């Protein structure tokens, strides 16, 4: 806390200043203080020195690699790899969705699944009796696949006679959001 008392700005504030993450008024205040306070400048220099070192050194290592053939090698490896089955593609898509907007999409998909169920029930009831019996058979409503992404599990059902697919994703109480 000594730094704060002596110069008015703590290290966390100075780091955020260097990140450009301070509110405008506070940023102006730090800039003004830097102009008149050599000790504050020294502290900022230290912070910048470590940042610059890391970037310069790692950039230098990357620049030392011969990249000319790398992209073509990657593409060749990609094209040699087998294509994903549709289930894996869906799982990847769910992973992408949940990685960034889990709460919104979980809720939306749960609502969509519920809406699909509401719409489907009357249709099934309206079917002729033989159809309703058939709908209770194991192959009429097929759980195609269970998918897990993180802590979320999804079940995909296919209803062949109505040519409908239902994706059921139960909502989690412990879903987390980046911000």
């Amino acid at each position, binding site marked *: 806390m000594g730094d704060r008392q002596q110069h008015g700005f703590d290290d966390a504030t100075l780091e955020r200043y260097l990140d450009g993450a301070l509110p405008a008024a506070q940023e102006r205040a730090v800039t003004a203080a830097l102009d008149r306070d050599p000790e504050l400048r020294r502290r900022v220099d*230290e912070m910048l020195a470590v940042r610059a070192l890391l970037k310069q050194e790692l950039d230098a290592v990357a620049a030392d690699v011969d990249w000319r053939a790398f992209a073509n090698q990657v593409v060749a490896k990609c094209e040699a790899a087998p294509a994903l089955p549709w289930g894996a593609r869906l799982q990847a898509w769910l992973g992408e969705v949940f990685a960034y907007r889990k709460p919104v999409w979980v809720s939306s998909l749960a609502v969509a699944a519920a809406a699909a169920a509401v719409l489907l029930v009357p249709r099934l009831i309206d079917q002729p009796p033989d159809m309703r019996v058939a709908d209770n058979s194991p192959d009429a409503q097929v759980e195609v696949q269970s998918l897990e992404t993180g802590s979320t599990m999804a079940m995909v059902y296919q209803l062949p006679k109505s040519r409908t697919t239902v994706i059921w994703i139960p909502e989690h109480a412990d879903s*987390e959001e980046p911000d």
Partner: protein
Amino acid sequence: MGETELADRDLVDRAKAGDRPAFTLLVQRYQKRAFAVAYGMLHNRDDALDVVQDAFVKVHKHIGAFQGNASFYTWLYRIVANLCIDVRRRRGRRPEVAFEEAIKPDETAAAGVDVAPHHGEANPVDNLTRRELRREMGKALDGLSENHRLILLLREVEGLSYEDLARVLKISKGTVMSRLFHARKNMQKALRPYLGLKPGAGLSGAPAEADQGEEEERALRSAEAQPEIQ
């Protein structure tokens, strides 16, 4: 990164449609940056190159499912980060190749290249060769926790914003600031003797770290449980 993002999205759309040159351009655009992060994490050139290659293979495999909710590069860095964590876990020990060994001997000629910015003071690295400094930086990085190392590399080397860091690492923005602050302080502390930094600078104004350990562990587990974007 606005313009880059737009161009990335265009390239991603074209790559989704099977446009090979578009995918090649994406690889060329990010290969060095992804490598820098991987090398910082692994300290081994070959391992880092393997990780970058595997990351792009995964990108290619899953690009059809990429919705563009996030920037392409945040997705890519998340894949790279997870692959690096896998490699380190598989190693289960310190890397075999020291940080500086990947550097060509003739690069020591670059000793004395300015590292620190100037505000009218002497360059603090004048008394060290670049090679020595690299070795110490490698040790300092290795001394950080996995989470601190990763966030530091993504911020200082790749320049990711707080928001992007939160997305890549699946943590809150507050945790980003806290973790970044402590990672930087640890790095400064480790490099202080080699950069002419003044001893005794503490963690003044350190953001609260009460929930840090628990949240970091949770984020790490969560990252590992996402093979589809690894």
